[in-house]
């Protein structure tokens, strides 16, 4: 017996209750999802080519060599931040090691002293020339109007929070 749903003619009652489903659409979505998953993984692996190094690992850990494009993680040293001629310069430290960084432009976000950041670029002649800065916020959240901290001490408190 042919049980294929009918959508016209004297099968109008059936047509009202069984809408013809577009089975190709889920197939297309599955195919797109598979391709998109592949693209996402590929992009992640491609970005991982740039080694993720802490400041104290530059020149020590394999892959964190001078002259090679890397990502450097550290905390912006208090009092080192300066902006001139459209460039931002600061020092980045981690585990008592420090590196000078120069970035052409304004990093944006909540970039400031005492905050952990990730700088993308190359170390050349003792200066890390960065073309991308990402601010790495810690998982600590402190209320701005916390009465336990005096107003004048807030900036210093934020610094200590970030450096942990």
């Amino acid at each position: 017996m042919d049980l294929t749903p009918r959508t016209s003619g004297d099968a109008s009652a059936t047509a009202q209750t069984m809408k013809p489903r577009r089975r190709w659409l889920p197939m297309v979505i599955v195919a797109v999802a598979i391709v998109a998953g592949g693209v996402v993984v590929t992009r992640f692996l491609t970005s991982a080519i740039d080694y993720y190094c802490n400041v104290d690992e530059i020149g020590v850990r394999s892959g964190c060599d001078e002259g090679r494009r890397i990502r450097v993680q550290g905390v912006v040293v208090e009092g080192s931040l300066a902006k001139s001629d459209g460039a931002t310069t600061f020092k980045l430290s981690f585990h008592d090691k420090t590196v000078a960084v120069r970035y052409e432009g304004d990093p944006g976000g909540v970039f400031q002293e005492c905050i952990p950041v990730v700088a993308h670029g190359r170390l050349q002649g003792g200066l890390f020339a960065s073309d991308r800065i990402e601010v790495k916020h810690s998982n600590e959240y402190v209320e701005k109007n916390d009465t336990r901290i005096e107003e004048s001490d807030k900036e210093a408190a934020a610094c200590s929070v970030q450096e942990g």
Partner: protein
Amino acid sequence: MPGTSTPTGTRATRMLGVVTLAFTVWLVVFGLVVSAEDVVQGSTVRMMYVHVPSIWVAYVAFALTAVVSAVYLSGKNRSLAWDRVAGASAEIGVLFVAISLITGSLWGRLTWGTYWVWDARLTSTAFLFITYIGYLAVRGLGGSFRQRARRSAVLALLAVLEIPLVHFSVVIWRSLHQESTVANSGTDVELDGLMLFTLFLGIVTFTMLFAWMVLHRQRALALQDAVDSHGLDLAIKQRQQEAEVR
């Protein structure tokens, strides 16, 4: 029956809806007005009260999808009600992952200085989102209700394995994304009092919202299945009548 009004709500779901609405108002007041700004992020921290509860609900939704899928596969009578709960839960989970990705991207622009990085946490969350889009598409591939239930249940049990990968990605790989603040066994909670309370309020509110949505959606799916079955019944009846005439 098609053509008649069949509500998906009950007295219990209506009560749950009212309580959820009250909690939502409470969350909005605390999230936007009562809770303080963060010393570094300022008002941007308020994104947390939507971002974190959204991904929490997504985890719960996908875990529920896996659990009821396992119940379906292991059960003797294999009730399709389990399959519909799995489908409803996954649909809502996808919605909340999308909310989490969007709010996270906006929050990232304001704090990190960029909307997106191919970082382990962000990448694994995007992959989770794509996986469950695929899961929902697989549910729509056709076949009988039981075929749909069986293939999607197997897929749900595989897909749920991505959740620990997403959650621990910030521990496994060096990441721009911060580690967990609350669900972090290694350290004390690092949120000031009212921020922590507001975050938990958000998690409770979003969880209730999820429960309300799943209850309604699985009933809507049951009605959809009933409509499809009704159409099939009509087709069989019609063919039988045609055979008798001949």
